[in-house]
């Protein structure tokens, strides 16, 4: 039994509270990745909760930084962040910015917010570890919309060239991006084949099924970097948010909040 199985609903509830209280945005993006981030922190990654900076830790970078509330929520559920900290999310003077921040936030590896950055940083960490034969895997989550960024493919080429088998990219493939459906903006049909063509060991899964996520993230991929295409639904978990681009931006007001809370509690 994976810990993440009992975590994901609570993570979504926390995200809803944080975003409702802060009148913030990107709830759909956070729900899209809630299961993946839960599996990573709760079941896959090796790290010392009492000494998060240990050199041999596995690391996770959220390259699509706007979904940061999901990471904060997971860290709270695992006892790494406090209730006071997540209550401060996006409030005046808080360290917990809307785009994920590592400054003053235990458990977050790197601040992001501009798309296409996190994957390169992850690539550099994996490369340095490989050169020094150091332990610890590097996981990085990018959005499928984020794959519009050229730097994503620069990193993909480098990781393949250097056989970075300590690096795993998870693509949160919810097929939507800021202005609508990806197929109407920059279509990447058969995204698995593209990553495979770039030389990556690629596997495609249901990104809301903890067992499938766990299995994919722990599969052997010696000599090659691993790409997990996680098919997801933006807004997953709240019926009226699922697949609706409005919830990339909209803050759940009183009525929407109550309905969402009910759905996530039942």
């Amino acid at each position, binding site marked *: 039994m994976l810990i993440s199985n009992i975590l994901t609903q609570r993570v979504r509830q926390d995200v809803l509270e944080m975003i409702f209280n802060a009148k913030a945005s990107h709830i759909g993006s956070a729900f899209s990745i809630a299961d993946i981030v839960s599996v990573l922190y709760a079941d896959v990654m090796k790290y010392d909760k009492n000494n998060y900076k240990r050199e041999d830790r596995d690391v996770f970078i959220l390259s699509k930084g706007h979904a940061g509330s999901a990471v904060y929520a997971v860290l709270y559920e695992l006892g790494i962040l406090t209730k006071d900290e997540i209550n401060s999310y996006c409030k005046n003077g808080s360290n917990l910015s809307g785009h994920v921040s*590592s400054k003053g936030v235990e458990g977050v590896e*790197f*601040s*992001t*917010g*501009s798309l*296409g*950055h*996190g*994957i*390169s*940083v*992850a*690539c*550099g*960490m*994996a*490369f*340095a*570890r490989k*050169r*020094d034969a*150091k332990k610890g895997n590097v996981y990085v989550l990018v959005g499928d919309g984020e794959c519009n960024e*050229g*730097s994503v493919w*620069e*990193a993909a*080429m*480098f990781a393949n*060239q*250097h056989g970075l088998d300590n690096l795993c990219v998870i693509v949160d493939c919810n097929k939507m991006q800021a202005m609508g459906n990806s197929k109407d903006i920059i279509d990447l049909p058969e995204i698995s084949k593209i990553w495979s063509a770039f030389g990556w060991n690629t596997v495609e899964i249901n990104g809301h099924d903890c067992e499938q996520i766990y299995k994919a993230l722990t599969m052997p991929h010696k000599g090659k970097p691993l790409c997990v295409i996680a098919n997801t639904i933006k807004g997953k978990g709240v019926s009226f948010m699922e697949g609706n681009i409005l919830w990339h931006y909209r803050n759940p007001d009183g009525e929407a909040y109550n309905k969402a809370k009910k759905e996530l509690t039942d």
Partner: protein
Amino acid sequence: MRNAFIEKLYNAAKSDKNIMLVTGDLGFGVLDKFARELPQQFVNAGISEQNMMGMAAGMAKEGKKVFIYSIANFPTMRCLEQIRNDCAYNDLNVKIISVGAGFSYGYLGMSHHITEDIAVMSALPGVDVYSPADKAEAEKSFDAMLNKQGVAYVRLGKGKENDIHPEGTEFDISKPCLIKDGDKELVLTTGAIIEEAISAREKLGGDLKVYSVCRLKPIDKEAILDILKGYKRVFTLEEHSVIGGLGSIVGNIIAEEGLPVKVVKLGLKDIYSSKVGDQKYLRKLYGMDSDALVTEVLKK
């Protein structure tokens, strides 16, 4: 100065395994010895500056001291946001080397003219900026960059610069350095273009005091104020836009202190350099050669 800088880097890397040299597929013939002798500390990131700079942040996070080698505006403007968000914001040890200061690659065209880098890099908090005039300044820039945590940027000429510091003389790279004494007028310069100021001084019969300002950020304000004492005007000369470079830095200090000193800025006048030619030709064409300086000095 380029080769002297790389030689210093090679020697330091031999005794510090955490020094990494990362190139954006440039430096053919220049980086060979490093790559051959220290292959575990060298990597060619390919023609992909954004990824290279993001990776530099990642490597530095893992304890590496990363030196990025490239030319022109590629390791600065092409990946400016990676420098800002990933490297500088996190105060990571990433040192950026760009070869081709000013019009060093004159005939290659505007894409290869480095004329706004000081302005752009100086705007980023925590980024030190070095603009050496010769081999000795390049070597001292290296030492200073290596020994300070965080991001630093150095613009290098591509070779054959005149040595302005006689072999073996001591100087402090953090301060403006007096290169030629003179009575009446004062010029502050940065980079190899100092040779134009020295030449102007000869044409003026020696009545021009010439300083080299290698470290532009952080600038030693007190040292600049000391130098300005007794002058009613100061000339600045740089192979860079007149916006945001040495002239602006000196002008800001004067304005902040409310000094009655006029600043005459010689540099590229808020235009793009669309003509090509060798370095000397372009300096003349764009009004930053010794004759242009003499003309300004002779104006009353």
